[in-house]
């Protein structure tokens, strides 16, 4: 929803000319995706931390890493994936050609997954910190930059008709790295946050 608002604000404030919007489209889509993701990440652990269920996860004798990975996947399925699937609607408004839609959705889906993984680490670190929301954004940003760079590149190539394989492979590599390392770091962060 937030993503849609962002995507609408840009044409309204910049220019209604589709050809110029098209140049900005990758950036607008990806910044919008990042901002929406940051908003949603605040709630990844917050409720569970408050009602005590996160503690019980840590005490269950099961791998906290796996449980947080499962939570992150669910989070992406409920926020990142719908965002990616609804992107064509926003993209049309930004002058993205119809042929590029598939690639736009794919890159946003993969990138969104990587963002959720990385965001889980910062969400865990900011549990119980003052002004956690702002801090969450600040901590996620450095780790999110490669995702944004490659994702926007993929979207840009899709618009101009180039092969999107190179940046998609890189996005995939980041996602794989994220899958192996991020839940571990998030579990460590959550255990520290529960102290």
């Amino acid at each position, binding site marked *: 929803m937030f993503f849609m608002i962002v995507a609408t604000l840009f044409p309204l404030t910049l220019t209604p000319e589709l050809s110029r919007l098209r140049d900005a489209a990758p950036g607008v889509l990806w910044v919008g995706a990042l901002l929406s993701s940051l908003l949603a990440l605040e709630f990844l652990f917050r409720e569970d931390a*408050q*009602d*005590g*269920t996160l*503690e*019980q*996860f*840590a*005490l*269950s*004798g*099961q*791998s906290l890493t796996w*449980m947080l990975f499962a939570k992150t996947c669910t989070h992406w399925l409920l926020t990142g994936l719908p965002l990616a699937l609804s992107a064509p609607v926003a993209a049309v408004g930004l002058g993205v050609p119809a042929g590029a839609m598939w690639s736009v959705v794919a890159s946003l889906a993969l990138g969104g997954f990587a963002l959720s993984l990385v965001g889980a680490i910062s969400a865990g670190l900011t549990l119980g910190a003052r002004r956690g929301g702002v801090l969450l954004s600040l901590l996620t940003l450095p780790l999110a930059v490669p995702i944004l760079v490659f994702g926007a590149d993929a979207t840009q190539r899709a618009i101009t008709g180039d092969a999107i394989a190179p940046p998609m492979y890189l996005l995939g590599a980041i996602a794989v790295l994220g899958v192996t390392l991020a839940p571990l770091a998030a579990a460590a962060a959550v255990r520290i946050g*529960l*102290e």
Partner: protein
Amino acid sequence: MLNVSGLHLWRGDRHVLRDVSFSAAPGQCVQLTGKNGAGKTTLLRAIAGLLEPEEGQVSWRGSPARQTRDEFHAELAYLGHEPALKGDLSGHENLRFSVGIRRAVTADEIGAALTRTGAAGFSDRAVRMLSAGQRRRVALAGVLLSGAALWLLDEPTTNLDVEGQQLVSALIDEHLARNGIVVAAVHHSLALTSAGLVSLELGAA
């Protein structure tokens, strides 16, 4: 089986736990007493492994709990201030999830536990619609179902009426009879029928 030795813990500048040591054998209940802020919750969390002490050690079955963390946690049930229930699910569904991630559990077992703690009558309602005392009864059923040998209970009788307090004492008695161990912070006297009650006062400087 549970051995706590020389535990020191600071929270910021405050030396909350000073050289706390005790042992608990199967069939024993250690009741933690002390004023507010004496460190009862801190000690329970330190035993559970949620807090790391600066000095000292917690051992379970002879090995340091920190090294065998997952096995230790599998034998541990911790009941904290919050009943750890998701508001949107019913009591029954909550238990199916929270116990289910630890071990396989059948609907009958859940039903039996809820009946034992007097929560069967409202176990189908969403937890957010229950009173604090009702939620605590559901949480107690969770402790029963966990199958854990060691119970760490932080003020388990909060929000419970007199009948509820007697229920907690009875549950502890039954657990001790099964050779379980209980460490509990309770601010009133636990009228236990079994003889295994030991008291530990914290904060006496």
